[in-house]
């Protein structure tokens, strides 16, 4: 068993570091065409789920590509496991899920994972074992002999996740991981990300879906027009310090009035007192689970109870 000091030291280890990392796309004549990323300084530590958040064109994917060595920085540097991002050997410890699963459509699931396993120089038995486990994990066992061109988007995404994990990576980079997934797939993806963290993996994900980032990320960097706007822990960034939130269950209308009076007495400004709303994602998942648990039962027409 590693000592507590060793664990702490490991958690403090910087897995990814960027220093003044910037990217400018140029035209054929070398003239600046688009500044995709302005100088960026980041440190991502082992075991974190780090989110790159921003609207389309904000530089999230550019940052990921720079970290992967798919494109080269205009200035600054990106270090992954202490090595330059263009160093191929770092990829031994990395898994990458692109925004869309860019895989070879003429292969089936088994062949796909076997192919990517070979790229990690894995011996045949290990490849087979790993591929079987991952196919099982992403729920493609029944479809593993079908060519990927026959897969739905969700299935393609799942085999994409499997290929990203074929080498049991220490660092997983996910570009818009929930893009194109239905609510169940989204939830499974988020569960998977949290599970990866539990297994000690470091995850960097980019997304423009705020709820996804909020649900799973420990820290986030908010990018806009290629510039870092915010960086910190999610709970710190989202905490509204001048607002007090009280959540209670089973209070009567009279109790609501008493609370209002109490707020007035203390000079507080009442913002809202009432029944909170659940999220549409939670509502959808509950309906689906309910339907699966009791097939044939009619859908409810009114709202659901508090969660």
């Amino acid at each position, binding site marked *: 068993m590693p000592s507590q000091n060793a664990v702490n030291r490991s958690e403090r280890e910087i897995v990814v570091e960027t220093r003044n990392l910037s990217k400018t796309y140029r035209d054929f004549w070398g003239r600046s065409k688009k500044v995709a990323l302005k100088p960026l300084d980041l440190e991502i530590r082992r075991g974190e789920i780090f989110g790159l958040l921003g609207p389309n064109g904000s530089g999230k994917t550019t940052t990921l590509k720079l970290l992967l060595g798919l494109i080269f920085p205009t200035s600054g540097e990106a270090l992954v496991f202490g090595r330059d991002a263009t160093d191929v*050997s770092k990829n031994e410890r990395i898994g990458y899920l692109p925004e869309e699963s860019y895989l070879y459509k003429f292969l089936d699931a088994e062949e796909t994972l076997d192919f990517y396993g070979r790229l990690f120089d894995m011996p045949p038995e290990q490849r087979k074992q790993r591929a079987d486990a991952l196919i099982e994990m992403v729920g493609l066992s029944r479809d593993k002999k079908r060519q990927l061109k026959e897969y739905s988007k969700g299935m393609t995404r799942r085999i994409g996740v499997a290929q990203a994990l074929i080498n049991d990576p220490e660092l997983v980079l996910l570009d818009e991981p929930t893009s194109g997934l239905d609510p169940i797939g989204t939830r499974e993806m988020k569960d998977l990300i949290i599970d990866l963290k539990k297994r000690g993996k470091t995850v960097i994900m980019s997304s423009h879906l705020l709820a996804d980032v909020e649900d799973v990320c420990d820290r986030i960097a908010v990018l806009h027009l290629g510039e870092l706007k915010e960086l910190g822990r999610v709970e710190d960034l989202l905490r509204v310090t001048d607002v007090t939130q009280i959540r209670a269950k089973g209070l009567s209308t009279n109790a609501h009035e008493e609370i209002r009076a109490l707020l007035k007495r203390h000079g507080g400004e009442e913002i809202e007192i009432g029944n909170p709303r659940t999220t549409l994602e939670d509502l959808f998942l509950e309906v689906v689970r309910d339907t699966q648990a009791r097939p044939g039962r009619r859908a409810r027409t009114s709202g659901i109870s508090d969660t």
Partner: protein
Amino acid sequence: MVLEEEIPRFAAWIGPALLWYLFAGSLVAVLVAAVAWLVQSALYGPLAAGDRVYRGVLSGLVDLSGMSLRRIWALSRLAVQESLRRNVLVVLGIFALIVLFAGWFLDPTSVNPGKLYLGFILAATSLLVCLVTLVLSVFSLPADIRGKAIQTVTTKPVRTGEIVLGRIIGFSIVGTVLLALMGGVGWAFVVRSVRHGHEIAAEDLVEIRNDDGVSTGQEGRTSLDRGHRHRVDIATNGTGRTDTVQGHRHTVLTVKSGVQNGSSDQVTYEIGPAEGLLEARKPLRGTLRFVDREGRPSAKGISVGAEWSYRQYIEGGSLAAAIWTFGGLTEQSFPEGLPLEMIVRVFRTYKGEIERGIAGSVRVRNPSSGLQSDPFYFQAKEYTIDSLTIPRTLATTSADGGTRQIDLFADIVSNGRVEVVLQCLESAQYYGVAQADFYLRAGNGSFAFNYAKSCLGIWFSMLLVTAMGVMFSTFLSGPVALLATLSVVLLGQFREFILRLFESQVTGDTSIVPGGGPIESLYRIVTQTSITLDLDPSTTVTAMKTLDTFLLAPMRLGAALFPSLATLGTGDFVAGGFDIPVDLLAAHAMETFGYLMAFFLVGSLCLKAREVAS
């Protein structure tokens, strides 16, 4: 067959060639690094540029050392699977169609149908195989980059060299399988197409008698098959042979069956299979020199005005002669005498009897003592290989007119060397010969094996086309890479011409290649000016010639840098019935390997320097 240059022995040049290759490779590497530094300097300044180039070189070397066979094989397998997905096997159907309908446009009555069929099949095979692998190789990588599948590969611990090599190997495997299948079908097609027999009955033959009325044999003509028939001579012992028609002849055997029902012997004639059609002659070649019409040594023969100066001519009815010196002869190698085969071209200054060849003579001579045999007479015909066996026992006539018997090896061959003297006997007619035209038939190789060796030549071409296609596709889009590769192939086809044209342009020696470069040629076409006329000096002409030089310079560079696929082809040997020399194949193999290495390195470097996700 034409052999413009001697084939050097492999062992004689491989050592210096490898050293030169390493030196040239190192020089190019230094030049590339210098150019990279200059480009980077313009963007990032000299110090940062130096650091980038250093790190790039170091990273490249580390990548090369870290290549894995398993990854290369994985990428090769992927390339094969991709090819199959693209229905590459359809090309086999196209080839089958070509073979099925070949009979429509191949003339079985041609001068040498074996050569025609072989040339056609080898050309079709080469074209289809190279075209298929070219298309596969140039579009694969750009498609992966455009479809972004490359991103899931390059984010694995894959070296760019592995991606390039994997594709080269994968598509080469596809090309190899196609070549093997087409080669096999082609071989069967050729053998089946040229295989034929003839018939001859007793009534087709007439008895030949001498002045005393004694039979000396029979002569006649065979049946007409495959568009030709042969004249037959049968000796009194019942064996005979036909004349050579369409590049082949047959043996004839008289078969007598026993007495049946009181009747006399029944006689039938068996005509053997065609000889000389699908052969693999192993020639022993000599060196050629000339003697002019006065009997004096001459560096060259006579030019009869042919633009192609491969063959030199000797004048008939004079002392002019072509003399070959053969070496390395032993009694053990040629116990029956010297099997001489001759390709003699005829240039007639008057038509004469066109069906009859031009008379000539061949003598063998001791290169040391000058003792020579009496002449052997023959008639030279166009497009045929004449054969003549110089027997062990020869006659020689001395100056006083006395004739005596001499032994070939005891009296004529000196230190393993012998001279063969060719003369044309008819005045005002000429024989045209080249060094490769006279040879001693040292043995026969297997035709099937020779055909396989020829397919090996196609394989070399296919490898180079594939590697070039992959190399260009690392930095060009698919269609542009296709055009670039085709341009290089075309450039290679005209390599010798471009080299000579550039030399002519730079030195101003119009005798090397008359007519000038592309601009001057266009000017001459438009103004209908002959290429043999010098243009009057003017500013326009000077500008035209200067522009031509600038246009030809990159072509000259390209012609020098890239391989010429035309030189890798060995179809002429097989079609001509000659064994492909191992030295030649070894040279082609080394040339192919050398270029493959270069294409692989350039492709890896370009892909490494490229942002695959930009």
